[in-house]
């Protein structure tokens, strides 16, 4: 795969704080890469470094092999969709979209043609003469998108562009953006703090924590094999269980999550010298039954709390002592056999669904 953007040891300090800390990253040509992390993790600074609004304290940024570390934003083939959209209030839809072409002194007829294409692409046809204050939030967003795409950037940067939309429109736009990206083949770098959004849209996700890339991988890799407790906890929901390693039997190992609760895990992820491991188990991977199933990794517990979450029921199950598990089950609260607080249940976890995220 061809590399579009490369970051080599990029650090950005504000005073003594490293907002971005020695980041190495290769962004492939035509991919949809998401920078995902909580607020203040440095993902926006990383995007601003790519746009050229910030210059790295050290390290290099290359676009198509050319070092742009010191290139100002107006000389980079990169365009951004801003979180606030930053639509120019004194220009019409058309004026906004053609702004970048005017700055580049493109011939008049080419400007007209490209603006027409862009408005068509983002379904703004017929609104060209409108003023920004006459548009809805979703329409403004489309203007911001068209205004950036019309410049035919090598990389399109998107800074939480969907955060101001309501849930329904947001989901529709997620899919639309994804389709648009596939259709145009432009490299998208998308910033969000919404893990679900990242899972839906991205080819690859870079999970950012404290200015560093915690994990880089596809949505399924990151969800099923989180490389750290942070990623396991941040993406989706996870039971993080500090366990003692008791014995190794070839491909499996025996660990103790709590007094009397012992499970079998894959030994391949464990280092020989490790004595303790932090395990991650997704709540939907815990199987709940009333009678004891004939499976390994099964233990008894009592439902402490039941939370109705629409499609799913969230169960908090006290297994032993301090050990409490969160499980997600398909919502059956309308049925007779619904789960209730105080019920005694059996929990079963498949060996493959237990992920070692840390060990020592």
């Amino acid at each position, binding site marked *: 795969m061809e590399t579009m953007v490369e970051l080599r040891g990029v650090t950005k300090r504000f005073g003594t704080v490293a907002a971005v800390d020695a980041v190495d990253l290769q962004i492939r040509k035509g991919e949809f890469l998401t920078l995902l992390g909580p607020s203040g993790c440095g993902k926006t600074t990383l995007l601003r470094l790519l746009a050229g609004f910030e210059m790295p304290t050290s390290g290099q940024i290359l676009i198509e092999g050319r070092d742009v570390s010191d290139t*100002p*934003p107006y000389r980079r083939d990169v365009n*951004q969709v*801003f979180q606030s959209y930053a639509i*120019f209030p004194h220009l019409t839809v058309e004026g906004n979209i053609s*702004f*970048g072409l005017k700055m580049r002194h493109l011939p008049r007829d080419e400007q007209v043609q490209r603006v027409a294409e862009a408005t068509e692409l983002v379904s703004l046809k017929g609104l060209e003469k409108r003023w920004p204050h006459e548009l809805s939030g979703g329409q403004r967003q489309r203007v911001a998108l068209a*205004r950036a795409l019309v410049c035919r950037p090598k990389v399109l940067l998107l800074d939480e562009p969907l955060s101001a939309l309501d849930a329904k429109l947001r989901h529709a736009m997620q899919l639309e953006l994804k389709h648009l990206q596939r259709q145009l083949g432009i490299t998208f770098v998308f910033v969000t703090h919404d893990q679900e959004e990242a899972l839906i849209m991205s080819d690859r996700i870079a999970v950012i924590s404290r200015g560093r890339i915690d994990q880089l991988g596809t949505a399924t890799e990151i969800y099923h094999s989180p490389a750290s407790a942070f990623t396991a906890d941040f993406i989706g929901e996870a039971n993080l269980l500090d366990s003692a390693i008791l014995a190794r039997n070839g491909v499996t190992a025996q660990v103790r999550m709590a007094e009397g609760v012992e499970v079998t895990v894959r030994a391949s992820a464990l280092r020989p010298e490790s004595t303790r491991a932090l395990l991650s188990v997704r709540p939907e991977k815990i199987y709940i039954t009333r009678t004891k199933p004939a499976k390994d990794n099964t233990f008894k517990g009592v439902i402490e709390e039941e939370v109705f979450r629409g499609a799913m029921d969230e169960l908090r199950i006290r297994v032993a002592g301090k050990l409490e598990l969160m499980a997600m089950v398909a919502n059956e609260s309308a049925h007779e056999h619904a789960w209730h607080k105080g019920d005694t249940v059996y929990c079963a976890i498949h060996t493959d669904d237990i992920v070692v995220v840390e060990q020592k």
Partner: protein
Amino acid sequence: MARVNALFGGWTVLVLAFFYAPIVLLVAYSFNSSRLNIVWEGFTLKWYGMLWRDNRLIAALENSVLVALAATSLAVVVGTAGAWLIHRYRYGGIRTISTLAFIPMVVPEIIMGISLLVFFKTTGVALGYGTVIIAHTTFCFPFVMAAVQARLAGLDPSLEEAALDLGATPLKAFWYVIVPYLMPGIVSGALMAFALSMDELIVTYFTSSSASATLPLRIYGMAKVGLNPMINALSTIFIVATILLLLASESVKRLRR
């Protein structure tokens, strides 16, 4: 409740009367055919005609408009640039600079007039149009700066970045995006500056030559000799012009929405 409303209504009428009665009276007397303000003799437009034929007054009016236009233009450039630089760039001592910029707003005019006069005399600058324009710019630009700063307070910082992102150099971004955004502030600041300059007496008194005397200075000179219905007529024209300016600035604001 009705009594309270009546009370407030009555009070409002009294306050408005207090403000506007002298002006209404002045406008009425500008159409009075008697030379004396106290007696109403009948309707006339002769004072307006006399104004039109008074060459010294017309010359003073021309001076006033010239000075106000020049001082307003300079104040717009200096005030807008100043507001933007203070907003955009964090220099050391920026607070001191922005406080210093507003001092001409509060310094007593007589002190400003005298200090400017002393300054011009020491530096050997001959009093004339130039000195009046410089003096007027000095007290006008803080008003433009304040109006522009008020507008800048609500500026989305992404707006400038979006312009840079789309290929505009910092200068082009300022000209094509920031200036249009600031326009309502610039216009209202400019109108304020224009009105202040047209109005100014004391600073002008110290900094003008007889050739560059402005209208207020000429009116003052006339009033010293004795009240004259021509002054009423002149003032009426001033009031109408001011109202028209205000209406214009309001409609500009509405267009800009």
